[in-house]
């Protein structure tokens, strides 16, 4: 007799291996029960009533809310269940706008997909149209509450994963809605622009603010020279939009596609990722050896920066003053491009392609205003790049390869791995091991890799032990901030990325459910790193050329500070005028 615990799903015996609920068990054996309100990484909500199964002797229950028990006999596809599911869908659709044809979420919408799956061909209920205004105030997110089905996914991801709580349920009954505090505009709320709510929303109620049209207009304008930077995580995800597997490195195809579209220069954010490493490691060593503020946090994630500014202003002095790679690239374009292309900055359009919605917000920070103009003109997400290509009749999958342009397309493997949680830390270690520790052959630091929400590692540099932490998800970052505030933080250096998995899991990436694609994208980046002849940022000669030409010859110089560093500001959670003294 084995002590395995089993139950039966549609007559198949299934072993219980610590699954949270019946739904996970069903999915384990490939029975894909439709759901809206269930995400493995979020708490169980049980609101959508789509995951119904029949349990012998207990009747119909929602499978997401029932823990597995040995001996249960479950049926997932009875006539009654099929009828109930279709009915639930009809009810949801009856109060949903019927405007799929012009909805930005169309074809990616889970409501649409499941309606088709369960076979809705008619809605037998009276159609109700909710009246609710769109909120387009945010640089990153468009909120269209009329399309909300109240699954609460956004509410939970925002508070449970990101520790922000910008979206909540309000009112009740048929007036229920998901809304910001006091229904203020999203850009005045505590939202940090991470976009995870939009990545989790099954409908078009939360989508990404698109800059495709403006961008194409500039590309088509013969007066303008267009310069693109592309972030590391983009290349291992965009293929998914064109029917190829996750993790495939499409860098060279993207270059071909952009050139075909009419972009003049295609460069790589990896270039400034390398520069970030040089600059940030120098800053870290300086803090460490000259009694600077410790521990130090990384600064390349703009959602993390806004989070710290809003929720933990006491730790702002602990955050590296380095701009993000996108921000550094913005500055370098304005410095180097006039010479490279012979045009004035006013005719140079700087476009970045990012896996991230927060980068849209970052590009509009006051700190990135130069002579009354933002250094970066447009920020597109991976999804928008795909849409831009599709709308221009370009199929990425069929394109040949083209090399990135020089000089700002040169990069090392250290820059590539910026796109995955732990990558920035590993890149810093590759630099510090050689520059501080004198160790030349230290390249892979596997101890900092992985997907655990908070990971710890220890390295020894010049006989000094350094304690490192890598966190992703802002709720996790918040825990470390609290330790720093309380003076109990035992780490020296902390990498923070807001999105689960790091940039590869950014909200601007193709929508991916579950963890599998993220893992493949991460593997894609590590593979791309291995393929690089140069794998340490300090080996990127082009970076030093730019330092010599435009930045007083090296990191931490006056010019480097002026162009590659930034400042942070304490922010109110809610920036509407809410003076308690006035009431």
């Amino acid at each position: 007799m084995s002590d395995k615990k089993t139950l039966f799903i549609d007559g198949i015996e299934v072993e219980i291996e610590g699954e949270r609920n019946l739904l996970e068990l069903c999915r384990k054996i490939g029975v894909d029960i439709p759901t809206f309100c269930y995400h493995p990484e979020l708490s169980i909500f049980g609101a959508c009533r789509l995951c119904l199964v029949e349990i012998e002797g207990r009747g119909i229950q929602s499978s997401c809310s029932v823990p597995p028990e040995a001996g249960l006999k479950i049926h997932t596809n009875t006539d009654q269940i099929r009828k109930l599911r279709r009915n639930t869908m009809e009810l949801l659709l009856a109060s949903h706008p019927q405007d799929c044809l012009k909805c930005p979420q169309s074809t990616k919408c889970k409501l649409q997909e499941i309606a088709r799956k369960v076979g809705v061909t008619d809605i037998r209920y009276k159609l109700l149209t909710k009246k609710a205004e769109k909120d387009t105030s945010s640089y990153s997110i468009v909120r269209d509450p009329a399309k909300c089905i109240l699954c609460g996914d956004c509410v939970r991801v925002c508070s449970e994963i990101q520790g922000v709580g910008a979206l909540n349920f309000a009112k009740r009954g048929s007036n229920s809605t998901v809304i910001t505090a006091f229904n203020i505009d999203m850009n005045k709320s505590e939202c940090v622009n991470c976009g995870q709510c939009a990545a989790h929303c099954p409908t078009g109620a939360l989508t990404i603010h698109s800059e495709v049209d403006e961008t194409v207009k500039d590309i088509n304008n013969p007066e303008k020279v267009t310069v693109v930077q592309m972030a590391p995580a983009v290349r291992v995800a965009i293929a998914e939009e064109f029917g190829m597997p996750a993790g495939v490195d499409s860098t060279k195809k993207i270059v071909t596609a952009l050139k075909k579209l009419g972009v003049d220069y295609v460069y790589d954010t990896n270039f400034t990722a390398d520069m970030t490493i040089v600059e940030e490691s120098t800053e870290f060593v300086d803090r460490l050896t000259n009694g600077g503020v410790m521990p130090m946090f990384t600064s390349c994630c703009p959602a993390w920066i806004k989070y710290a500014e809003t929720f933990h202003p006491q730790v702002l002095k602990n955050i590296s003053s380095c701009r993000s790679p996108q921000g550094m690239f913005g500055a370098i374009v304005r410095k180097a491009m006039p010479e490279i292309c012979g045009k004035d900055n006013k005719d140079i359009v700087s476009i970045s392609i990012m896996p991230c919605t927060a980068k849209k917000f970052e590009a509009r920070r006051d700190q990135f205003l130069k002579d009354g103009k933002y250094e970066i003109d447009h920020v597109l997400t991976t999804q928008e790049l795909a849409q831009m290509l599709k709308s221009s009749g370009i199929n990425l999958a069929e394109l040949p390869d083209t090399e990135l342009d020089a000089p700002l397309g040169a990069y090392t493997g250290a820059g590539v791995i910026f796109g995955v949680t732990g990558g920035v830390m590993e890149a810093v270690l590759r630099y510090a091991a050689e520059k501080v520790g004198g160790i030349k052959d230290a390249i892979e630091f596997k101890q900092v890799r992985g997907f655990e929400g908070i990971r710890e590692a220890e390295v020894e540099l010049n006989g000094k032990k350094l304690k490192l932490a890598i966190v992703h998800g802002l709720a996790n970052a918040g825990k470390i901030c609290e330790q720093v505030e309380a003076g109990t933080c035992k780490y020296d250096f902390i990498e923070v990325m807001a999105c689960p998995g790091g940039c590869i899991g950014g909200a601007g990436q193709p929508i991916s459910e579950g963890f599998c694609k993220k893992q493949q994208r991460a593997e894609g980046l590590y593979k791309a790193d291995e393929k690089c002849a140069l794998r340490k940022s300090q080996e990127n000669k082009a970076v030093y050329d730019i330092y010599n030409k435009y930045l007083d010859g090296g990191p931490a110089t006056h010019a480097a500070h002026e162009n590659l560093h930034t400042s942070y500001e304490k922010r109110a959670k809610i920036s509407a005028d809410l003076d308690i003294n006035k009431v």
Partner: protein
Amino acid sequence: MLFVISLKAEEQFFKLNFLWGVTMTETTGQVLTAVEKIEKVREILKENEYKPSRLIPILQAVQEVYRYLPKEVMNFVAEELKIPAGKIYGVATFYAHFSLDPKGKHLIRICDGTACHVRGSEPILTAVRNKLGLTKTKSTTDDMLFTLETVSCLGACGLAPVMVVDEDVHGQMTPDKAVALIDEILKTEKA
């Protein structure tokens, strides 16, 4: 759906409080300065040990200070309890008991429960609305003197139809009697 069930329980709790007059202890007429009000809010928070789990009693007490829940104060309470302001907004908009709009100096509640309805609460409501220039969607007078609300059952069905003006319960109302009561208040207000 556990969430909803527990909220229902809270709702009942309100009703009970209401019946026993616990929520009717607003000290009308006593004018506090903004600073004094904030002080009161701080006291309320302290009495409730800054516990987010005490949010509902906290909001009830705060509403007694301001006679409604101003956004500014909800935001302040959120900061002090270290919870998102949106959570408080959610609770405040869920319960009919909480008002997000300022209320007039005098609160008139007309019962429209079954007993009162049958015995003619409707004409009373119309008469009071006409008298004060109010409508279904406008429940507070421009001079902030009166707010008119309907409630479903005050638990005084024997006296139906019932109207409550501030803390006084008036039974067996008629439209004329209701208007007379308002005239009386207006007279003292003008004096």
